[in-house]
């Protein structure tokens, strides 16, 4: 653990957020203190801030594999998704398309603009046959043409990796004018973004998922893509996203992404091993269903379903043991919602009630995994015993 307030906690919720990297914290501090200028200003003090943002943009572009001019700093991953989807719909008048297993940041946008929500395969990736049929059926222009297809790179609940290359081939062939957007928020820690970027026109990231601060997002937009700005105002980010730059956040984001990229290959192997140890340990309890096989999942996510238990109760017992875990997404009230991802994949509702996501990250240790195994096995055994009496 990185010290701080997390003593005694076994933190296995890195897909929700991961601790900030020390390097990122160090990088942002000067801009929270003395270097407070607004980079849009015209004095020397402002120029220093401007330079920091420009350098950050270069660093980010290098990791994504795009040109600096294609990077737009936003306020969150959700804002990036909103901008890409609603921006294209506004600009082109075409329809939006996504799968039913997308993050709500995409799904709710597509529903909001009256788009097509398609089914998935057994791993939660968009069904390519249905996608092809949907694009084929649409006209080349007019309100029923396809404006934007949004396909997540990695599913936030299950860790399932989408074959973006296959998606891209379908989209380019059947709807060559459509913008292909990917929510890559869960991909940054595990996949080389330089491999993903050539397949898409827009790519959204969220800083706090890779050791940057909360409240900063990145949207890479391929030059010339028809995307209207979502936030209007002073014209920052080349008129693509207004609002005073979050200089400290942007600087820290760039450092975090750079360090993540540098360590990725090594980390992916280390964390994949921990994840396999974890899943093997959990399997002791019996009747455990691994949602996504290792070769289809990012290393950081262990998603399993325990037959015969309710994850609301499981999470409480784990919380009592200091284990921070997650199940599906929560609604505004804080109540756990039945997972729309598992529903889209066709997982039985009763089994989905026993879903648990343990997500690992750059601070996860073998000791964390051992503690989690002990806590989960004991809690699941207890709940099953209680249900059986």
């Amino acid at each position: 653990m990185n010290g701080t307030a997390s003593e005694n906690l076994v933190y296995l919720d890195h897909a929700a957020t991961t601790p900030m990297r020390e390097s990122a914290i160090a990088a942002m501090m000067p801009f929270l203190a003395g270097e407070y200028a607004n980079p849009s200003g015209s004095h020397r003090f402002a120029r220093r801030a401007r330079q920091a943002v420009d350098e950050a943009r270069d660093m980010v572009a290098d990791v994504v594999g795009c040109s600096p001019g294609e990077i737009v700093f936003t306020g969150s991953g959700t804002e990036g998704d909103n901008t890409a989807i609603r921006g294209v719909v506004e600009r082109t008048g075409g329809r939006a398309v996504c799968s039913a297993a997308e993050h709500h940041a995409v799904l709710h946008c597509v529903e909001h603009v009256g788009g097509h929500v398609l089914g998935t395969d057994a791993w939660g990736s968009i069904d390519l046959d249905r996608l092809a049929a949907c694009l084929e059926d649409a006209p080349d222009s007019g309100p029923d043409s396809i404006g934007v297809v949004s396909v997540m790179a990695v599913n936030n609940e299950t860790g399932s990796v989408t074959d973006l290359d296959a998606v891209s081939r379908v989209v380019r062939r059947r709807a060559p004018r459509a913008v292909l957007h990917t929510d890559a928020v869960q991909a940054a820690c595990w996949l080389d973004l330089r491999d993903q970027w050539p397949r898409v026109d827009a790519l959204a990231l969220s800083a706090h998922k890779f050791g940057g601060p909360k409240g900063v997002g990145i949207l890479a937009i391929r030059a010339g893509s028809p995307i209207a700005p979502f936030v209007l105002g002073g014209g920052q980010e080349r008129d693509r996203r207004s609002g005073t730059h979050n200089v400290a956040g942007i600087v820290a984001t760039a450092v975090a992404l750079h360090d993540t990229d540098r360590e990725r290959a090594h980390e992916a192997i280390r964390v994949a091993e921990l994840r396999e140890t974890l899943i093997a340990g959990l399997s002791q309890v019996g009747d455990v269903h691994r949602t996504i096989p290792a070769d289809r999942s990012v290393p950081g996510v262990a998603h399993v379903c325990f037959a015969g238990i309710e994850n609301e109760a499981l999470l409480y017992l784990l919380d009592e043991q200091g284990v921070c875990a997650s199940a599906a997404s929560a609604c505004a009230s804080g109540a756990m919602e039945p997972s729309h991802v598992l529903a889209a994949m066709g997982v039985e509702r009763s089994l989905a009630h026993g879903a648990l996501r343990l997500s690992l990250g750059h601070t996860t240790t073998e000791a964390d995994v051992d503690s989690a195994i002990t806590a989960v096995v004991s809690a699941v055994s207890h709940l099953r015993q209680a249900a059986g009496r």
Partner: protein
Amino acid sequence: MKILVAMSGGVDSSVAAALLKEDGHDVVGVTLRLWGGESDSGCCSVSDVDDARRVAQQLGIDHLVFNFSDDFQRSVVDPYVHDHARGVTPNPCIECNRHLKFDRLFERADVLGFDAVATGHHARVEFIEGVWRLLRGHDGAKDQSYVVHVLDQRRLARCLFPVGTMTKAEVRRHAERLGLRTAHKPDSQDVCFITSSGGRADFLRRRIELHPAEVVDQNGQALGEVESVELVTLGQRRGVAGGGGTKRFVVDVDVASRRVVVGDESELLVDHEIGADPVWTDGEFEGDVLVQCSAHGEPRQGRVSRSSHAGTDRVVVAWDRPQRRVSPGQSLVFYDPIGDWVIGGATVTSSDRRSTS
């Protein structure tokens, strides 16, 4: 004790949690997410959850949210709609207590290792001569023993109503002293899943077909029409045809043939009621009781006994003197005539009625 407090976001459950904390218990608050649709306090009642969470934070206790919306739909909303479709007027609050608060929540509390479950109901539980007694709350105007009558010995032994010994004014004063944000929150009214703007009619119309019906008198003479027979309740006076100064009451609702019969009050009088699915706080009982037929109704004197009718799970309540019929679907709650504790209850059935002759 380790106690799970059901916190609705209202002042009563806020103070219930506060009192238990003050008594030194290990307290965890939980708000149940029951209804996912539209409500007067916003979608999923988020503002109520916010209130409960802020009060819990202020008290320094953990706060959880359990999503029981599937069970709520199945055990409360679906039956509510289905009952209306067959001309029965159910009490969803009692069914919610029965199936959600005192069944599902207790079960969850058991599994998670809690010793007891507490709520903010105005009722009392006391251990008297070897028996757990469910008694009326001290504030007569706020007494809720009627809606929690579904508790049995097993549950009563582990159920706490911390504000049952207080008046509502005392509860609010206590909340004020602690500076709780719920101190002046108005009491909740009506059914939580029905909005005041749309009402019951709107809610039902979106789920079942509502049918117009003719209104006739006892002799079959047509008097007019009502828009929706499913919304008419036995004993109702408002909205049914009839003028000329005579007070007319609905004395029969026949959904199948879409007919509402009105008559004068005497037509409503019966000498008994039949209750289905009786529940008992301390085992089956036969004898003299006081019977309450609505949340704040005046108790009536009667005698409860096992039914001689076919089907075992029935009781007969014979009135000491003729009483107005109780609408099918409503709960009859039996109180000890002297001790004023709850003996049990049953749900009025729609079949097997005979009026006095």
